[in-house]
């Protein structure tokens, strides 16, 4: 399938979802760099190394906690924010602009990792203008419903 998300494109996909992402890297289970945003190729290895260290420090800080190991990290700093999310296979870390909405950033990170793990592709809505070019059908209208209809039989 042409639209399948590959590790190489995952970081760029994240940036496509959120304009607040300044740079992102994807690491594989071994902690090796698997992908980076397009303009980060020169410093991607260094960023990947830092992303790996971030979760190492998180695991060190939480080893005595009686909870499951953290899956996502948010660090707010005066000049921006760092968000990272991991699955057993991948770690995706992003540096975001100041004021990026945490809940959206964390959701997008999780969505990209989910797609990478074989989950459903992230659907991006199209503008009304674009939709208007095609014939208006009930199927198209149903696709645009954000939530399933409740209260049915």
């Amino acid at each position, binding site marked *: 399938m042409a639209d399948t998300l590959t590790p190489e494109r995952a970081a760029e996909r994240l940036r496509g979802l959120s304009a607040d992402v300044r740079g992102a890297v994807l690491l594989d289970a071994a902690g090796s760099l698997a992908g980076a945003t397009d303009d980060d190729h020169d*410093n991607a290895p260094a960023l990947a190394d830092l992303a790996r260290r971030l979760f190492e420090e998180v695991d060190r800080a939480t080893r005595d906690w009686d909870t499951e190991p953290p899956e996502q990290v948010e660090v*707010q700093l005066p000049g*921006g924010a760092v968000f990272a999310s991991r699955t057993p296979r991948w770690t995706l870390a992003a*540096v975001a602009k100041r004021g990026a909405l945490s809940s959206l950033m964390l959701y997008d990170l999780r969505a990209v990792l989910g797609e990478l793990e074989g989950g459903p592709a992230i659907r991006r809505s199209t503008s009304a203008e674009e939709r208007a070019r095609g014939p208006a059908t009930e199927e198209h209208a149903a696709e645009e419903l954000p939530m399933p209809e409740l209260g049915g039989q």
Partner: protein
Amino acid sequence: MKEKRKGPLSRAAGLAEGMAATVRRMQREREPRVLLYDPAGYARLVQPEARGHARIMQVAEEMLGQVAERE
């Protein structure tokens, strides 16, 4: 119970209070902090004096520096 405001001046004061509270909340949300989320999505704040807080902040700052350097 919150007293109901009457008159345009009181309403303006109420609006200003609301805006000030929003600004304070936004500032609070942007204070340096480390939040960790478990797989269920529950957040836990790492207290500034807690073990590891300073190191996590330092690594995150370095990440920010890396991206800023490129920009």
